[in-house]
């Protein structure tokens, strides 16, 4: 049998997904490129935001455009307090008829790093209100453990600041988080290119959430396809198990039967 892709899917809160890529809908050159990139990525879960309806817009058509084709994951981007994040999640639940939420509570608009204190407060409250909470958090094992203890459905540590394209700045922390956390782990934010996604998957992450790396690429559709393949490759490598690193060589070819002229 030729193994084409990982045998196991992604499981979050009792739901199963074939794709281990979650993708954002922001900052594509235009709507058609976004749709083509979403398609090429194979992603089933797609992130969206919640914003005030301006008098001029009359309601953006994104909901109707994607309804029935994807699983919506609304975020609470732009929220700085637990209170705002909880109300935003409730609005999203009402608008999208989903109790899933990508919980973001930002502490600083330059780094967009999470405000851990507010994040934990919001996570606890949303879990109590029956939400399936997927929190964007620091690559900090203790924060991840606290989010797990609060009843989150997954934990989404950052690789690097949102939109920075820096890749995985602390693979060792992600390894520790992987060893300690039983929840699905989704690397969210900071990836730049396909090899970053592969590395994350080789570290044992369950999935990747990205947006800028695809939307901002010269060819977003091609990068979406690259990310899909990179994630599948990384996952297969993780399941296969890499060989240990050794300082010295070990010959691949047999040493017996060498000629001796």
């Amino acid at each position, binding site marked *: 049998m030729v193994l084409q892709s990982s045998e196991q899917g992604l499981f979050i809160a009792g739901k199963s997904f074939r794709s281990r890529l979650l993708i954002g809908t922001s900052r594509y050159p235009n709507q058609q490129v976004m749709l083509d990139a979403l398609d090429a990525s194979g992603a089933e879960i797609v992130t969206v*935001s*919640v914003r*005030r309806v301006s008098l001029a817009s009359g309601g953006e058509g*994104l909901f109707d455009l994607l309804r029935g084709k994807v699983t919506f994951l609304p975020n609470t981007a732009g929220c700085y307090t637990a209170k705002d994040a909880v109300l935003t999640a409730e609005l999203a639940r009402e*608008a999208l008829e989903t109790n899933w939420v990508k919980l973001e509570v930002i502490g600083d608009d330059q780094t967009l790093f999470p405000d851990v204190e507010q994040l934990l407060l919001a996570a606890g409250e949303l879990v109590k209100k029956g939400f399936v909470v997927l929190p964007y958090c620091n690559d900090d094992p203790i924060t991840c453990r606290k989010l797990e203890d609060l009843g989150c459905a997954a934990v989404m540590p950052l690789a690097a600041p949102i939109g920075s394209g820096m890749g995985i700045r602390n693979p060792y922390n992600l390894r520790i988080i992987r060893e300690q956390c039983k929840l699905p782990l989704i690397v969210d934010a900071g990836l730049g290119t396909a090899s970053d996604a592969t590395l994350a998957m080789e570290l044992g992450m369950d999935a990747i959430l990205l947006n*800028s790396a695809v939307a901002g690429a010269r060819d977003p559709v091609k990068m979406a396809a690259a990310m899909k393949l990179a994630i599948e490759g990384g996952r297969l490598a993780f399941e296969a198990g890499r060989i240990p690193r050794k300082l010295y060589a070990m010959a691949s070819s047999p040493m017996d039967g060498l000629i001796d002229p």
Partner: protein
Amino acid sequence: MGIKIIVNGEVWEFGGATLSELLLERGLTPDQGGLAVAINGSIALRSEWSEITILPSDNVEIIHIVRGG
């Protein structure tokens, strides 16, 4: 003469009575998808939009789904 309320952070003179009427006044159709409303920080359930009465000084947030990461 309507009542003065706040809609999405700005003063709005509302000539109707119910939340459904407010949405229509704002150019939205209450049956369109991807919308949600909070009044004074509490969610207004879609099933109750036609029955909810808007009161003077109410703070109404009307949101929709937009692109996000």
